[in-house]
């Protein structure tokens, strides 16, 4: 097991280096705009652009730039300085991280609280009208684009532009430590919107897993020995049907922590996803590099944790 984890960790490092290299090449080879020109302000002289290009190190060959970049990360944990904010990228990311974590954690709570019971009831009441109705509803929820749901919810129930004024609208995000009440209020809509498709997906997943599990022999044994149906479903059925969901959950959380770009964009939440988007639009290479690497880091670490956790949850899995 330990050997397996060490091998995986080494691969994580290699993977991140490859990701950083590919990102570097992509954004170096086809930048969306010339960073030097963007920094130079209005109607700059060619000499000024050349000077800025030189100070940013953009006149060096690509491998020199990449090597310098990698060196700074490994030796100083320095991901460079943002062109647009003139701040260290690490600082920017850590500034934005609380918003992304708040969004992710709340949405996870919502979708588990909604998705799992719905999936369970649907599986137990299989083939009933209730089951059919919820399964159709979940498919509709999965098919709705998250940004459209977000905008529609703002149009319908937000305090500023909504038809009915119920929830705080876009751009009202406040830090948890600054004002817990406003933090909660500003995040209710984003949580619900982000959680919708996930809740639907988890309900479907748990339903199909549970239906499969409930046809296993040990469920029949559990029933035969006289356990109440409730116990059979919860202790024997759900417990085993939920294992694959842990896998999916880990990966989803990892992906979202790297930035829920669309939700953060629609609700104007200052998270990592928005930072990345701003970086891309403004050709802020260090920010793009940093956020992509950071997102990849969460994805691969989540994968690793999930694989290790799997061995604990499912005794049949051995590495």
């Amino acid at each position, binding site marked *: 097991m330990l050997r397996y984890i060490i091998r995986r960790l080494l691969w994580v490092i290699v993977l*991140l280096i490859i990701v950083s290299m590919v990102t570097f090449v*992509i954004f170096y080879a086809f930048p*969306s705009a010339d960073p030097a020109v963007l920094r130079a302000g209005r109607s700059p002289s060619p000499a000024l652009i050349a000077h800025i290009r030189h100070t940013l190190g953009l006149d060096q060959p690509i491998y020199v730039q990449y090597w310098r970049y990698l060196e700074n990360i490994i030796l100083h944990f320095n991901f460079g300085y943002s062109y647009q904010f003139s701040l260290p990228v690490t600082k920017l990311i850590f500034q934005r991280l609380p918003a992304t974590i708040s969004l992710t954690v709340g949405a996870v709570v919502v979708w588990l609280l909604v998705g799992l019971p719905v999936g369970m009831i649907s599986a137990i009441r299989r083939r009933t009208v209730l*089951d059919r109705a919820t399964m159709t509803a979940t498919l509709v929820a999965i098919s709705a684009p998250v940004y*459209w749901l977000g905008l529609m919810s703002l149009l319908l129930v937000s305090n500023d532009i909504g038809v009915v004024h119920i929830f705080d609208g876009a751009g009202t995000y406040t830090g948890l430590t600054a004002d817990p009440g406003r933090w909660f209020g500003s995040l209710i809509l984003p949580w619900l919107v982000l959680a919708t498709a996930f809740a639907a997906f988890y309900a479907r997943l748990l339903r199909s897993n549970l239906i499969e599990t409930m046809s296993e022999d040990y469920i029949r044994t559990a029933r035969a020995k006289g356990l109440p149906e409730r116990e059979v479903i919860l202790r024997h059925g759900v417990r085993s049907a939920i294992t694959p969901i842990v896998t999916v959950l880990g990966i989803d959380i990892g992906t979202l922590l790297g930035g829920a*770009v669309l939700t953060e964009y629609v609700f104007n939440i200052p998270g990592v996803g928005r930072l990345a*988007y701003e970086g891309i639009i403004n050709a802020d290479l260090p920010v793009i590099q940093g956020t992509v690497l950071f997102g*990849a880091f969460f*994805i691969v670490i989540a994968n690793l944790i999930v694989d290790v956790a799997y061995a604990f949850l499912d005794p049949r899995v051995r590495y």
Partner: protein
Amino acid sequence: MSVGAAESALVEPEAVESVELVGGEIVARSPWQMFWLRFRADRVAMVSAIFIVLLILVAVFAQPIVSLIGVTGPNQPNTGALNAFGQPTGPSAAHPFGVDELGRDILARTIYGAQVSLEVAFIATGAAVLIGVVIGTTAGYFRGWVDTVLARLMDVVLAFPILLLAIGLASACSLGHGCLGGLITPGRVTLIVVIALSSWPYIGRIVRGQTLSIREKEFVEAARSLGASNTRIIRREILPNLVAPIIVYASLVLPTNVLYEAALSFLGVGVQPPTASWGQMIASASSYTSAWWYMVFPGVALMLTVLAFNLVGDGLQDALNPKTGRP
């Protein structure tokens, strides 16, 4: 007719095995006939499939349809349709879905939006399937270092925060003359390339896994002992057995790619204006909060399209793998 009896016989586990392998061991009907029988019985999936066919027809014949309805063209600004304050006006006899901020007809733009959506999603998914199948079968069949390299390649692609990479690539390629020396032109081509490049590993992984198990089967050994070449074994023995899983996974990737195109267009890195695209319409609608029709119609069109693809995908899955059972 004995269709009912034949179908219930399919539920027998033994029969199911041979259906799943699309091997043609059942005498009476070809696997495709049985697939069609099951799919046809699935009313929801059939309705969705008909919806998609109609949508394709609408997209292809957008121009005659728009002129038949009698609304103005998708890119025809009309300040006369705006109200006294220069704001978009809602549904009326002349414009059933209302108009946008330039007075362009939203019904016409929604109809034309189907073109971009379907074209990008179908071509990108097709390309992803092609890449995924080639790489997946190669990795699974040859194993060894080839497999290691290709499987690692898929790991790398899957490790990327895909949406970020796509926004970056798309925004880079949607400026001026595109990127890679003009090879990838802005707009649809960029979208297709970006989406195909990021969705092939999902197909590739499945194909690789299936190939790994199929290559150990006796009929592959038989073909090899008869002296069949590797290419022939892959094409004649392995690929036919992959058709069912490929169709199922392609049908799962397709609606995701419809959403993907719309998301990129929504973020402003998709097709170039004035071409109509649902995602881009939703984005512009967000600045006109009193014009509900501007936001609702393209959004509903997008949602219905994705929903129809999802329902067909579900139906295909059930029809191809009867083991999963009907809901």
